[in-house]
């Protein structure tokens, strides 16, 4: 991982939160190289004890937040609340669930009850 071209951008956050280095790396590569997100930057989510990303999906003007995690992690409602505490002006974020075969599955987590679009 250290030799990969994406590593230098992620290095500061990986050093701070080494346990979630895997999902961080996988999600960053998926967003920047495969999904082609724009203006991607790494953010520090201290309550959630990991790094995350802020960027724009291709074709949109607003930026979104992506929080990576392992498939095998147990996440609780209080953990989700702590992520929203780290991001005070954000109404929803994408949870990037990373698996060992390199699949990344995205789920959108919203604050409160949100009616699904038609």
């Amino acid at each position, binding site marked *: *991982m*250290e030799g*990969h*071209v994406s590593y230098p951008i992620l290095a500061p956050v990986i050093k701070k939160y*080494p346990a979630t*280095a*895997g999902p961080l*790396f*996988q999600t960053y*590569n*998926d967003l920047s*190289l*495969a999904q082609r997100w724009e203006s991607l930057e790494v953010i520090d989510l201290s309550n959630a004890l990991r790094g995350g990303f802020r960027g724009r999906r291709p074709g949109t003007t607003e930026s979104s937040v992506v929080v990576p995690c392992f*498939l*095998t992690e*147990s996440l609780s409602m209080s953990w989700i609340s702590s992520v929203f505490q780290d991001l005070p002006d954000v109404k929803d974020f994408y949870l990037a*669930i*990373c*698996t*060992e*075969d*390199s*699949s990344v*599955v995205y789920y959108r987590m919203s604050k409160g009850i949100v009616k699904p679009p038609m």
Partner: protein
Amino acid sequence: MQLNANQHIKSGGRKQNNNEKYRHAFPLVFTARPWPSRLIGVVGLGTGSLDNPECLGIFDPHTKSVWIQTSRDSNILWTRGFFGKGNLSRSEPSWHDRQKSSVLTSEEITAQRREARKKFKQERAQALLEAAAQAEAAFAVGQEAPAPVLPSRPAEHLIIPKRPTKDDVLEEDLPKEPTEDLEHLQLTLPEAFFLVWGLGCLTIVDPNTHMPMSLGAVWGSFQNAYSPSPSPSPGLISRLDNPFLINYLVYHHYRSLGWIVKSGTKFCVDILLYKRGPVFSHAEFAILVIPVYENAEDQKSSPFDLPNAGPISWTWLGTINRVNSQVQKTVILTYVVIPSSTSVSSDDRRTPACLSRFSLREVPLKRFIPARMRD
């Protein structure tokens, strides 16, 4: 990587192409002997030769996987047994091809198909709305409503993509091809161990020393990857409920029965079983791995929080069965019985010999609807 070659061939030809491309079930290939030595082979002697591609991978403990970084090895491992997945692609590593806009890959075909289906659904919804409005208007006047005209199925609108020829595309219009392929083939730890121990066609390199790892080191490191505390030494006495052992046991079991085993995350299950491969047909079975401890004390003292090890609720099971029956897959519960730690010696635990002490039981699930299933 060679998917573009199939696009302009009719379905019969594509099937034949795939049969040819994926003709080897495993990376190891036995080469046929010429007929005189086949006679010798009949009496039990003989010199058929084994072609071992001797692939090289690097272990990454952060992503708990082994990376194959050369296109030669990626191609061999994918086409001979469907091992691994491109880390920037849906299945076969095709990221580099997708960057060259002249080549159409499976991801792009799926995107086109989804667009066509979305458009069809919108047109159909629109047509139904108009028909309903017309029927209302006709009813108000007292006349019969005209029959609604619905748009035809998207398959009729679908244009088989053609590979652009030299006449279509000018040299200056082509974007500059990226020089570096930033994608690798990612093997899960069970896949990698199967290739190293079961088939002997893969060597794994340590990420820190860049030296090839011995079998014992691989066995230890793969288990340590799941350890809650950082970097214990290899050669540690294994806990029998290490997730790597459970995952490997199930993988080895189905692989040796001839199934192609892939991850089942997209269908809320642990693994999917393919009869010949993802290229030939959809997976028939969706497997949920359920670990069961022979000795309850082992579960209490476990540092791992094994998924599905606790009591199962019907809502959870029902949800998974719903998801999978919509895609015509049968859900199978595979119970893995973890032997008591007191019954397996520490010597056995240092090697894969401990795997023979586990046992496996399969329970297929089928939803029974009395009204429909009368025969």
